[in-house]
């Protein structure tokens, strides 16, 4: 019984990475289709995600699923090995809360200091650190947010897990440090060294270069936040 699984994504997108990590963790074979999000959207992308016109899109037996957190829940419900959501409804609710918190509050807050105007930076840094502090507390000394193994929240938080430190390296702006957030910092090492994660991260040098390109585009006003 052939199952057609396709992912439309962008190599440097933390949202695409969510879908990729979940599928790889569960050993699900899939075809990957690269979309150039900085250029024209492909007709297929527009067909499968007409409303948001964004990656990632998961195509399963011809049916599209969009929105990265919705995709993660779908993947977990279809492929039952290596669950990324906890079993008990309460623990599930906690995981969903943290994943949503990450998307609603952390992503915008942690990303902002790198591109905002100079006079807004101090406040942006403060808000970013507030989020990181909350994440540090949420981690509660565990190895991963998911416990002994990575779960929904770790996968959702991959921007802090991997991308953030590459942005820090390129800009010299340090939000997350071992001194300020020891557990969270350690978590980023555990995350990028995880056997499945490390095989599927964007190549570091390529990411660093891409960061420079993106920052330049923001500064030139070519892209908005």
């Amino acid at each position, binding site marked *: 019984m052939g199952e057609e699984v396709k992912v439309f994504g962008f190599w440097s997108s933390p949202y695409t990475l969510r879908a990729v990590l979940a599928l790889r963790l569960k050993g699900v074979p899939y075809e990957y289709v690269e979309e150039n999000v900085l250029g024209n959207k492909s007709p297929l992308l527009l067909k499968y995600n007409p*409303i948001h016109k964004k990656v990632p899109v998961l195509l*399963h037996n011809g*049916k599209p*699923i*969009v*929105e990265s957190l*919705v*995709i993660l*829940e*779908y993947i977990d*419900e*279809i492929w039952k090995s290596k669950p990324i959501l906890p079993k008990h*409804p*309460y623990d*599930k*609710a906690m995981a*969903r*809360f943290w994943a*949503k*918190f990450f998307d609603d509050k952390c992503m915008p807050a942690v990303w902002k200091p790198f591109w905002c105007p100079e006079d807004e930076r101090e406040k942006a840094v403060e808000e970013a650190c507030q989020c990181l502090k*909350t994440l540090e507390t949420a981690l509660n000394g565990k190895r991963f947010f998911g416990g002994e193994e990575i779960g929904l929240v770790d996968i959702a938080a991959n921007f802090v897990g991997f991308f953030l430190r590459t942005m820090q390296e390129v800009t010299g702006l340090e939000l997350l440090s071992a001194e300020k957030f020891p557990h969270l910092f350690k978590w980023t090492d555990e995350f990028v060294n995880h056997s499945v994660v490390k095989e599927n991260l964007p190549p570091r040098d390529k990411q660093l270069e891409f960061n420079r390109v993106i920052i330049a585009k923001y500064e030139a006003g070519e892209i908005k936040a």
Partner: protein
Amino acid sequence: MAGHGNGNGEEVKLLGIWFSPYVRRVVWALELKGIDYEWVELSFRDPKNRSRSLLEHNPVLKRVPVLVHRGRPVVESLVIVEYIDETWRNNPVLPLDPYERAVARFWANFVDQKITEVLIKLLSLTDKTQMEEEAKQASKALEIVDRELKAKGKKFFGGETIGLVDIALSIVTNWMEAIEEVLDVRIFDSRTHPLIAQWKTNFVEFVRHNLPPKDGLLRFYRRYHQSKIASVAPSRL
């Protein structure tokens, strides 16, 4: 019904406030499944108690609704609704099929991002042009939802009974009507959103008018909006 909190032998408490659309979602989910719960109003008239309760039960976001079940808090309205659905399996609010669940979650998120949050935001805006622009976007989003409802061909997104998407879409009933009136903006139009028009009637009937009274919302939103206008420096008006 709100009672002694004996959710079939378990302690269920809902911390909320009468006007909140997010809190009301949880009420409907509980009532749909016949779960007994204790209602705790965290009124602004008792700020100390409200503050303390929120700090204890929702330290991260400090807001209602909070569902407390067996002493443990669950927060964020749609997270709570899914929790309720998984804990009490009768009268499901989400479909059983994984693909249909993904579709429901997608639409619930769409409604919240493009309609619910925009409507709430409108109340804080003081610039009329900005308000009209945001209202226009919300109206367009409602058109998309109207088309989806048409394609579905059922009474509700949940079929014959309300589901996750309907619960999110509830904002277009008393709340949206009150906001439109207070701000003198138009989002809903029965000609542009014909199926939503019918859906509203069906929804209100289904939840047996368990909604904050419109005149109460009008008063509350009017006061709220006035306070926003008053806080804008005169030279910027």
